[in-house]
């Protein structure tokens, strides 16, 4: 962690509002990115992002200064997303992406890979999804993901492998991947 970042966090801990704003702006994109990919819903992702920042800033004194900030922050986001997804499972009207994915009568969305990937992510197990996104989109190392999710590196590797394999299988099954 750079000195500049450490100073920023120290200022946040001192209750300086300008520093908190800077903190939010600095991490806004990865936080929202993970939330959006995990939830597949922009409005929910914004709520989760905002809530995650509030929790992070309030718990900043618990952060281990010897470790990177982003994995710690994304761990909070991941936990909030999982909580929301769990509550969605109790409400059958939520989680439309997963419902659509399970419905084979829906026509493939004409080569729209981005939508297919989103639907594929929605159909993945939450653990696979989080590990896959942290590795491939947030560019965290396996070690950082393991610390963030509180699992052994081997488990994280397995989750990432299975996640991307299932996504590819889905893309192939939907006919949106060029087959040679």
């Amino acid at each position: 962690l750079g000195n500049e970042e450490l100073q920023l966090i120290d200022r946040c801990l001192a209750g300086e509002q300008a520093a908190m704003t800077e903190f939010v702006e600095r991490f806004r994109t990865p936080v929202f990115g993970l939330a959006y990919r995990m939830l597949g819903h922009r409005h929910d992702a914004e709520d989760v992002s905002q809530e995650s920042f509030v929790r992070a800033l309030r718990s900043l004194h618990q952060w281990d200064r010897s470790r990177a900030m982003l994995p710690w922050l994304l761990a909070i986001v991941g936990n909030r997303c999982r909580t929301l997804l769990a509550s969605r499972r109790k409400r059958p009207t939520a989680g439309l992406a997963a419902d659509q994915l399970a419905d084979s009568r829906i026509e493939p969305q004409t080569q729209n890979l981005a939508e297919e990937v989103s639907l594929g992510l929605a159909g993945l197990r939450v653990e696979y999804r989080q590990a896959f996104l942290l590795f491939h989109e947030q560019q965290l190392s396996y070690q950082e993901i393991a610390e963030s999710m509180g699992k052994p590196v081997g488990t994280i590797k397995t989750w990432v492998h299975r996640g991307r394999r299932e996504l590819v299988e889905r893309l192939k099954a939907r006919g949106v991947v060029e087959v040679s």
Partner: protein
Amino acid sequence: MNCGEFERRLQHLLDERKQKLLREDDLPAPMQIHLKDCGECANLVSGYRALLATLSASHPGTSAFRAANVIELTTAAPHRLGRFRSLAPLATAAVLLIATFMVYQYGAPATVKQARIEQPIFVPSYANSPPQEHALTTVASSSRPTLYPSMEINERSLGLMLNLAGLSPVTFSAELLDSHLIERPAWMVQVSDGLKPVTERMTGTLNALLQALPGADAAKEGSQGARYNRYYPCDPLA
């Protein structure tokens, strides 16, 4: 190289973030050779290539929430009940438990009182009594002092007079046994002291009388409930 080995190497490349090598021409030579003969693995490589390219090209973009909202929420004082909110279910359970206990504790005696009210004031009960004694159930603190018989004893005889409110006095008399002349039995002493000893015959008379009385009223007024009292046999009246 078989398909299993090919995929293992492919996963290793992806773990090393070398997805740029997923183009067929950039793969390591042994993998290229396998791909030429294996359409299934070629499809797999195409799939990974498309997936990762799409992921990087379709970034969710920026969020719309205002940082000021985060600061406001962060610096706002926590809800006064915030730290105790988790205790709310426990507190509710405790209140319910106490309420249940109190209902049980103070509701049960009313039922007992109701049962006691239905009991007759005087009921002979000889069970578990010594042969010479008879036990009677009564309301100990009956507020009917007129039920206490008054007694007069002279040289050879005993007179018992029972005064009942609203009724004419009932008088019993009997000659005393010789033994009672030498030493007065305890029951006599108790009658004299207002402890209402009654005889077998007296008991029957009392019960007959009490059947005609609103006995429940007396029971209601008794504050200590029913209990057993000892009554001594009165030989002269037997």
